[in-house]
C-alpha cells in the first residue's frame, strides 16, 4: 500500500487494517476504535454513573470465569497449570465443551479414570488442547472407548468454535 499522508504512514506501522480498509488509500479512516483517538462526547458526563458501574460488571465476569476454570481444575488434571489456565481463559466454547464432556467421558472410559488437559503448541504457533484419558488397560479397549465417545457424543458437537480441542487417550 502506498502511504499517503502522516496518518496513513503511522497506521501502516502500528495497526492492522482489514483488506477492505486498505482500499481507501489517501483517506483517513476513523472507523476503527483501536486506531482512532476519540475525544469524549459532550454528553458523556451525563452517563458517568453508568460508566462507573462497568468495572464492577467486569469484576463479576472475571469472578465467574475464575469459578468456571476452578471447577474444571477439580474435574481435570492440568498438565501445566499456567499454560492450561491461560488457554482456557481465551476459549469460552472449549470451557463449556469440557464441562459438558465429563459425564460422557466417565460413561465411556470409566468413572475411575483420570482426565488431564494439555496444550500442544505447533511450530506455526497454533495451539491445540488435548483432553487426555489416562489408560492403564489394553490399548484396544482405550481405542474402543474413544471411538464410542466420539460416535455417541463429540462428533455431533464439533464445530469451528471447539476446533482447538481434541479428545485422546494416553497409555500408562
Amino acid at each position: 500500500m502506498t502511504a499517503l499522508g502522516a496518518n496513513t504512514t503511522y497506521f501502516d506501522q502500528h495497526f492492522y487494517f482489514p483488506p477492505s480498509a486498505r482500499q481507501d488509500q489517501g483517506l483517513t479512516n476513523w472507523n476503527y476504535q483501536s486506531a482512532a483517538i476519540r475525544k469524549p462526547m459532550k454528553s458523556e458526563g451525563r452517563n458517568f454513573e453508568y460508566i462507573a458501574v462497568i468495572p464492577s460488571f467486569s469484576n463479576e465476569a472475571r469472578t465467574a470465569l475464575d469459578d468456571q476454570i476452578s471447577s474444571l481444575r477439580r474435574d481435570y488434571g492440568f498438565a501445566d497449570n499456567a499454560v492450561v489456565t491461560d488457554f482456557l481463559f481465551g476459549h469460552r466454547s472449549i470451557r463449556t465443551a469440557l464441562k459438558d464432556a465429563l459425564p460422557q467421558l466417565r460413561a465411556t472410559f470409566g468413572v475411575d479414570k483420570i482426565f488431564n488437559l494439555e496444550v500442544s503448541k505447533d511450530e506455526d504457533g497454533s495451539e491445540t488442547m488435548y483432553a487426555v484419558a489416562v489408560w492403564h488397560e489394553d490399548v484396544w479397549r482405550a481405542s474402543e472407548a474413544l471411538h464410542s465417545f466420539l460416535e455417541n457424543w463429540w462428533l455431533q458437537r464439533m464445530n469451528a468454535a471447539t476446533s482447538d480441542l481434541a479428545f485422546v487417550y494416553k497409555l500408562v
Partner: protein
Amino acid sequence: MATAPFDWNEYLNLASTLSANADEASQRTATSRAYYTAFHAATLHAKHNGYAERSHGRLWKMYSSDADINARRISALGNQMKKAREDADYVAAVPRMSDIMMQQLADANTFVALLAQVPPTSPQPLPPSPPKVCRNCGAVI
C-alpha cells in the same frame, strides 16, 4: 527431468517393516512415520480445495470444523495419531511404546480408508488465524 512425486504411503510400508523389530527406536520411528502417512494424505486431499499450508494443528482444525462427519472423524483420529507421534518423537520415557506403535499402525490404515469417504469438497480452508491478544492489556502479541 521432472522427479516423480513421492508416495507418502511408503512411510506406512516402512512403519510396517519397522514394527517387526523389537527395539524402541524402531517402534518410535514406526509410530512417527505412520502419523506422517496420515498427515500427508489429509493435506493432499485438502489441496483440492485450495489448502496450501503445512501446519499440523490447522490441518486438523480445518477437518474438525467441516460439515461432513467423516471429515470430523478424520480430525479426531488425526489428533490421536498426532499425540502419539509427539510422544514418540519428543518424550524420553514413553510407557508401552510397543502397544502405541501397533495401535498407530491400525489407526493409519483406518485413517486411509476413512479419508476415501470424505467428499472432495471437504474440508474447506480456514480463514487466517486472528492475531493473538494479551488478555490483560489488550495488546496484539
